[in-house]
């Protein structure tokens, strides 16, 4: 290192004696943030709305900190500080719609929820009889269960084939690739497919819940395959080899060793897949129809699900209570499924060590 041996230049001793360039104090971002919050609060007091006040506060932070930094630390650090602010801001922006949406659904949906809302169907037996969404809750459960019954066995067995049998052969590679592509099929296309297939087979005007289940399973299978594949890959080969060493045939090894080890992750993946399709609307509009009556027969007649109910009632006035209440029930079901998936994943995951 020759540069260290050279004597420091005395002409500019202030710069040269310090090895570190000037820095803002450690708390600088915090201080500027405090000022920004104060400015935002002031705007709020002056009568601006919440959204403009927050925007002005954010702008103050994003301008003040880089300018301060520019005057002391130089251009490169100033850019870095600005980008740090901007990048965190993207997360805040993404959070805003989620919070707003959940708040709207809760605020408008909770007043609608009561015991008759959940236990009566939309069909009025007499003029003053209460109506509810019971028929749609039942419909949602039946159609989603149908989709799960179709797609879970197919999805899991496909993943078993891809990971345990078809290793690296070209057929397995093609299937893996096409399953990935299938995750992007628009839901309305799945609905049109089910509609085209069932009307060709059973005549025009055919509507039934099973058609909806078929459409949904087309959307669900890729998710199940992907989740199961990931989990089977995580099963260590030692377990398989130990099983073979005991003389166990391959299919017994898979059913008794590999699948039980991965079952936690698989159940999590399946639950998440269910929570994705339970809110689907577009395919069911086309093939499952809509009704106000509770229909428990998946093989004939229209069946309404919660999303379809929300969609169908949104245009007519006087239905605000029903649609927001139904939205709240739907979002609670989806969030519960997500929660259950996480808990099951934790509880059932194989013990380490």
């Amino acid at each position, binding site marked *: 290192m020759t540069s260290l041996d050279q004597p420091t230049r005395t002409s500019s001793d202030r710069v040269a004696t310090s090895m570190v360039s000037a820095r803002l104090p450690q708390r600088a971002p915090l201080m500027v943030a405090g000022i920004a919050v104060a400015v935002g609060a002031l705007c709020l007091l002056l009568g601006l709305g919440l959204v403009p006040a927050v925007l002005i506060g954010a702008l103050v932070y994003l301008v003040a900190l880089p300018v301060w930094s520019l005057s002391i630390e130089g251009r490169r650090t100033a850019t870095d500080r600005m980008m*740090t602010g901007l990048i965190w801001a993207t997360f805040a922006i993404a959070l805003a719609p989620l919070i707003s949406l959940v708040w709207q659904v809760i605020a408008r949906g909770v007043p609608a929820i009561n015991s008759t809302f959940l236990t009566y169907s939309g069909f009025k037996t007499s003029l003053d009889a209460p109506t509810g969404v019971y028929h749609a809750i039942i419909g949602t459960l039946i159609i989603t269960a149908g989709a799960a019954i179709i797609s879970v066995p197919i999805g899991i067995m496909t993943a078993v084939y891809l990971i345990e049998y078809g290793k690296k052969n070209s057929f397995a590679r093609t299937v893996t690739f096409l399953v990935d592509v299938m995750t992007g099929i628009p839901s309305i296309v799945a609905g049109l497919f089910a509609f085209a297939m069932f009307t*060709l087979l059973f005549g025009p005007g055919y509507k039934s819940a099973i058609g909806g289940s078929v459409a949904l399973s087309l959307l669900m299978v890729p998710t199940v395959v992907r989740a199961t594949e990931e989990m089977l890959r995580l099963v260590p080969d030692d377990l398989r080899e130990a099983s073979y060493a005991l003389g166990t045939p391959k299919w017994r090894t898979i059913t008794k060793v590999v699948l039980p080890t991965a079952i936690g992750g698989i159940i999590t993946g399946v639950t998440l897949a269910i929570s994705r399709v339970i809110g689907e609307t577009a395919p069911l509009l086309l093939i499952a129809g809509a009704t106000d009556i509770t229909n428990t027969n998946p093989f004939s007649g229209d069946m309404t699900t919660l999303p379809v109910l929300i969609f169908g009632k*949104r245009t007519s006035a006087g239905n605000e209570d029903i649609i927001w209440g139904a939205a709240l029930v739907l979002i609670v079901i989806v969030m519960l499924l997500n929660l259950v998936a996480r808990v099951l994943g934790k509880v059932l995951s194989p013990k380490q060590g």
Partner: protein
Amino acid sequence: MTTTKSDLDAAPAWATRKAGGGDAVFKGTAFASACVILLALAGVFVFLSLKGAQGFTQPTEVYQRGYGDSFIGYVLPLLGGTVIAAVIALIIAVPLAIGIALVITQYAPPWLASPVAYVIDLLAAVPSVIYGLWGGLFLAPKLVPVYQWFHDTLGFIPLFGKVATSGRSISTAGVVLAIMILPIITAISREVFARTPRLHREAALALGATRWETIRMTVFPYGRSGVVSAVMLGLGRALGETLAVVMVLSPGTIFTIDLFSGSNTPSIAANVALKYSERSPGTLEVLIATGLVLFVMTFVVNFAARYIVARQERKFAV
């Protein structure tokens, strides 16, 4: 793609041969399941073609109930609506998604990164019908002042010509679509950013680069093709999303580039959901034909995106 399995099959030959044919049955079932998936994919194409074939050659008046004189005239304005909504969604979602992916992989401390990722995944869990409800009833009126500001300051640009007082325009649909495709773009970008070799980053930091310079020099070049495919997957979602567009946009019959007017043509998917209950003859066939167009379009986009991802994974696997 990390794999804990060796390339060699661990199972000895007898393990798949003996055992009273149990393994043959099991393997056969597994193989059949994989075939069922391929058949289903082929089935989508076959049944849409069978049923939609008549949709291409209907009498003129069937198409005139929609948007034009022929199938091309019918589907082009819809394609326009589809593409405009998707492009608006991408313009909004891509910078946000890249920023969030950077937060998760580069900025957030480890204890915060996974909650951040979970919150973004929650966005994907919200059903599309609820996005539509929220977008149409709550968001659309709130955006009117923004549109009005654009109209007042940049009104000379034809894009910002008219402002619908309800706010139910193709732009609002684009905004809602942006929120809906944010999670998928974030998820894929996050994965490729996390794969940036540690040594590249540390080398840049050791040279005195700031964090942002490190990201520009190491993370972005490494993740570029991954981000491209993430954007294409987001595009595929945005092209095919139905409910958010139907429930937010107040549809018109003529294609315009007025982003804020409430009279733009809906997207293909939205058009199906709007018109499926019309009982006039021929309509359903035409709708299925447009569905075939949408299917082919999204299939090509997704195929290309997945191809890029797969190629990249092969590159890293070596």
